[in-house]
């Protein structure tokens, strides 16, 4: 009969009962839900944003420095104060999570014994699993009082308000430490030992091996981790809504009250913005801004990882 080799690797036959034929399409439909989700997210955000921009000029939105959508006589829709608030939180969080997360990753990958690692890693995973609302509570009940206590005594440190950007940035930073440390550690652990041994053979110390061999070799994974963590900080909502306040302003003082894009969305979401009102529409304009920012960061992170990956056999 046929001399062609039969490929058994992927298929049983599909042609048996009706169930067999239907199953394939049902499962495809399930997978397609994810594509539909993306399409729906983009459609919903763009549609709402179009409504919004028919009432507000897009130039005013992108360049305005005053966000006061509820001012009765002269509402103003400059998104910059909200973006600035988000940036303050993100930069503050990164200042904590990047050094702490990277050094933690180096410790776990290069120094820690398997026993220590098997304890510390799950503990850090717990940190990642705690709901963000709990971090918000932690900020207002623990971090802010500490900052306020320091405020009077430490020179140059102004008295923080009940709501301030610093406390929110600190808890968001803590929240994303596990993200930085676990992805970076994965990257460091995948650096082959032959590289380390070669360096030791040249007389390098452990410190030199860690910082001059392992770190550069795993840099793409580490940078990808930073970007993902920053993207997470940009989208972080409940902690900043509780701790950072609801006053959109362009301030350089991290101990003042601010408002982030996400916190504004929460403010409108808990209020009763009626459908079609400018407040309701502004949700989607802000949501689109947020989505575009995080989307670009996620794509950038994937690109960094694939572009600069060192391949080891």
């Amino acid at each position, binding site marked *: 009969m046929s001399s062609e080799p039969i490929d058994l690797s992927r298929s049983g036959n599909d042609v048996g009962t009706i169930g067999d034929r239907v199953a394939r399409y049902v499962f495809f439909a399930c997978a397609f839900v994810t594509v539909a989700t993306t399409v729906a997210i983009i459609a*919903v955000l763009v549609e709402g944003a179009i409504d919004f921009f028919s009432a507000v000029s897009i130039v005013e939105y992108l360049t305005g420095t005053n966000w006061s959508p509820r001012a009765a006589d002269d509402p103003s829709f400059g998104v910059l104060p909200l973006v600035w608030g988000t940036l303050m939180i993100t930069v503050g969080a990164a200042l904590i999570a990047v050094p702490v997360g990277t050094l933690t990753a180096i410790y776990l990958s290069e120094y820690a014994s398997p026993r220590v690692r098997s304890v510390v890693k799950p503990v850090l995973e717990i940190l990642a699993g705690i709901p963000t609302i709990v971090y918000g*509570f932690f900020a207002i009940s623990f971090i802010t009082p500490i900052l306020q206590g320091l405020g009077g005594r430490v020179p140059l440190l102004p008295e923080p308000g009940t709501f301030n950007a610093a406390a929110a940035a600190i808890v968001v930073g803590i929240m994303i430490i596990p993200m930085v440390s676990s992805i970076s550690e994965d990257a460091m652990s995948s650096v082959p030992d032959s590289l380390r041994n070669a360096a030791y053979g040249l007389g390098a110390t452990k410190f030199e091996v860690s910082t001059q061999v392992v770190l550069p070799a795993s840099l793409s994974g580490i940078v990808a981790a930073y970007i993902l963590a920053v993207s997470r900080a940009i989208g972080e909502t409940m902690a900043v809504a509780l701790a950072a306040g609801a006053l959109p302003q362009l301030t350089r003082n991290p101990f003042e009250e601010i408002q982030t894009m996400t916190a504004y969305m929460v403010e409108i979401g808990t209020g009763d913005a009626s459908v079609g009102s400018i407040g309701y529409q502004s949700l989607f304009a802000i949501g689109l801004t947020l989505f575009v920012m995080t989307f670009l960061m996620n794509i950038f992170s994937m690109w960094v990882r694939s572009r600069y990956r060192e391949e080891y056999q």
Partner: protein
Amino acid sequence: MSTPPTTDDSGFEFDESAVRRKRRLGKLFLGLCGTATLVGIVALVALLVDVVVEAWGWLTWEFLTYPPSQIVEHYDPSNYGDLPTGPGGLYPAIVGSIYLIVLTAIFTLFLGVGAAIYLEEYAPDNRLTRFIEANITNLAGVPSIVYGLLGLAVFVRALQTGASLIAGALTLTLLILPIVIVQSQESLRAVPDSMRQASYGTGATKWQTIRNVVLPEAVPGIMTGIILSLSRAIGETAPILMVGAATTMFTPPELTDPTGPFSAMPMQIFEWAKLPDGDFQHVAAAGIVVLLTVLLLMNAVAIYIRNAYDPRG
């Protein structure tokens, strides 16, 4: 060179001060890495201790079984004796959260596992498949509040479910779907191909093989993944807030009427934490302890399943 080179037994010359400097640097660096690792652990301990201390004395049986109250004294156990309306508590939100998670679990189970089966067992290696997988990775990075906007526009408004249990559950389903799919895929991939071949060899069709051979083998891993994802969903506040979860419900929602209004634990905690009256912080903390306990139980179940069915265990 300031110090004369030292010679060791074998006549090898080295600069002793340089060696000492390198040793000190190495120790300093190790100390730095260790300290950084401690930051995460200390933060976790501080967070948990802070929550428990704040909640101490406020978490009672009555707190779990009574509806919330606007008056903070109603939550204080020392006042329980002389209250005309009964104590205040978290009951409707606990029930709401449980129903929310049950519905989310049902939707996620079908969609998540179905999609994973398609991608692992059926999908040809073509552009569409790669696009679906890249899209899933991307969806995992979309901020949860954006899913809330999606739920608000699609489920609440377009499909007219109102601010209901079903809208909340569907929104949470879409939120955790990417994680569930990826974890289910890993479980399916771990089933050895030889088992599939053996099944085909007995004349089974593809669907019979998946149903009778592959799925039973992968179920523990899939269940672990789903439970862990659900434990993330139960703590999510932003999506259900945008969908319009009630800030305060005095009666629990009805599972028989999934289109009715609902509250959920994180939503109720957010409401309490926002209130200026200092004692509401204790009430919020008590709520957080309940939420974290539920999370802990769910994680314990997931870990138990993983260990119980671990072939290496």
